[in-house]
């Protein structure tokens, strides 16, 4: 006989209703949707052509014609930000996918098995992890050539040990708990326990880490392209725009202000969205309310 207490699952409409009451989720969702929409619209329309240089219009401040001003080649900053959004989102999203897809199973597996398996996996993990991510990303992109694809790979590889480590640390804190002992006594295998008990309990931790890594992915991409190692001109990228702005801060501060704000707002939106989701789906907070 198994003792099984049913905790009623929230229905889809229940979750939806909760989502609408969650300010962080709503705000994050709207910002993220707007940024995504902006990136998609840029494929078919931008206020100005970002590949066309109009030297006569160079370094103009905000105006009705150019809301965010123009750069040193007379290109419209707003249009460049719109096109740059595609690049940032794609790079960061794929890089988090790589990190989570490989890292979480590794970390959870290591915690569940313990012993030699744990040792071996964590030592390999430590090895990758010992190389500062951005430094290695710089080395990879500088060696294999700058560009968006190499930036994705460089950032993605170094997301793996982060997720593995957090998953393992979280799982290790769950394993000594009583309900795991109960599940063991009920004859469940360690894989079953990992999937049914450990992962749900560390999901919040992983989601929080996921939002952090997404933010870091966007930031790392901006950093790489700031150093000239990300997407290459004439493809606009937010980091590259900031690099171009740096030496012109005194005459054209808007060249630095607006692309930076685009990064801040995007990362902020994604983080709020992540926090909101965590809040809505967290079984612990559900029990308390």
């Amino acid at each position, binding site marked *: 006989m198994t003792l099984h207490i049913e905790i009623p699952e929230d229905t889809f409409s229940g979750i939806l209703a909760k989502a609408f009451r969650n300010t962080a989720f709503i705000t994050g969702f709207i910002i993220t949707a707007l940024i995504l929409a902006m990136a998609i619209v840029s494929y078919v329309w931008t206020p100005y052509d970002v590949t066309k240089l109009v030297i006569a219009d160079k370094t103009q401040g905000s105006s009705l014609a150019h809301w965010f001003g123009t750069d040193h080649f007379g290109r419209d900053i707003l249009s460049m930000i719109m096109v740059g959004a595609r690049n940032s989102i794609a790079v960061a999203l794929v890089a988090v996918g790589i990190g989570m897809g490989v890292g979480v199973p590794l970390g959870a597996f290591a915690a569940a098995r*313990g012993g030699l398996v744990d040792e071996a996996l964590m*030592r390999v993990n*430590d*090895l990758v*992890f*010992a*190389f*500062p*991510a*951005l*430094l290695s990303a*710089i*080395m990879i992109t*500088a*060696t294999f050539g700058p560009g968006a694809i190499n930036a994705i790979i460089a950032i993605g590889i170094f997301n793996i040990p*982060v997720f593995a*480590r*957090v998953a393992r*640390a*979280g799982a*290790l*804190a769950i394993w*000594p708990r009583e309900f795991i002992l109960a599940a063991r006594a009920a004859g469940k295998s360690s894989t079953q326990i990992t999937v049914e008990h450990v992962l749900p309990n560390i999901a*919040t*931790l992983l989601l*929080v880490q996921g939002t*952090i890594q997404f*933010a*870091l992915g966007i*930031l790392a991409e*901006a*950093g790489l392209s*700031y*150093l000239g190692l990300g997407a290459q001109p004439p493809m606009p990228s937010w980091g590259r725009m*900031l690099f171009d*702005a*740096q030496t012109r*801060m*005194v005459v054209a*501060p808007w060249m*630095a*202000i607006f*692309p*930076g704000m685009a*990064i*801040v*707002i*995007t*990362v*902020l939106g994604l*983080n*709020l969205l992540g*926090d909101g989701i965590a809040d809505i789906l967290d079984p*612990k907070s559900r029990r*308390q309310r």
Partner: protein
Amino acid sequence: MTAYLLKRLAIAIATLVLASIVVFAVLEVLPGDPARLMLGMNASADQVELLRNQMGLDAPLAWRYLHWASGLLSLDFGRSYTYSVPVIDLVRERLAVSLPLALIALALSTIIAIPIGLFSASRRGRVGDMVAMGAAQLGVAVPNFWFALMLIYVFAVWLHLVPAGGFPGWAAGAWPALKSLLLPAVALALPQAAILARVTRSALIEVLNEDYIRTARAKGLPYRAVLWRHALRNAMIPVLTILGLQFAFLLAGTIIIENVFYLPGLGRLVFQAITQRDLIVVESVVMLLVAAVIAVNLVVDLSYAVVDPRLRTRQ
């Protein structure tokens, strides 16, 4: 406990050895002749041959690795090709900028973040928590090099309080040198502090929901005592994990920040070495940074055992 310490130490050393093999191997598998790569396509065959001799490229692979590795151990990193000076001199000079920078940033970040995390967790959902976490949300979203540009604009271009970049050297006196490290350290620290504050808060809240916290409260302990003695200690594992992660991030972060502020630090050295293909400098500095990360991880691992005795006995 001693066995645990020794084991961790052995692992750290093994990781270091493996890392050195990886670094060495990566530079080996790079397409083309390293000497040719460093000299560029226009170099004459004689020049290439000379550098090959200098770098000992004619010796067998294993011998070269051992030679290089033993050189590292005795702090003989070889000579920089672009600067024509021993790499160790470059490193020593640059470390005098980067190490204080990273330490100031780490200290700033911890001092700001932990109290905010404690404050927010203990006032969960109230106005103070919402304001603090709103600020942290914003902080997490700010790229440190953009923040640096804005700091330069406000404090250097507008207010003329600090230099916009460059480093006068410690010989110019402690205050002028510190002054030029101030903006870079703040730029590095604030986004890190925001992340750390969020992690501290969520770890604490996780712990505050536990039964033993209720027990501690029920037996009459004041809230403050429970927060500091029971909650913070149990919340330390994720916090320490993130702190360890952040140190590596901070080290790499100096690469960009030092470029923004034109600081002659280790990060700028390695970035320039990468773009100039000065492989001897690249492999030495990378190994040095890797060794630093491994050392910090060792300390983090050991501190797990200090805060959580259960992990000590599990081994």
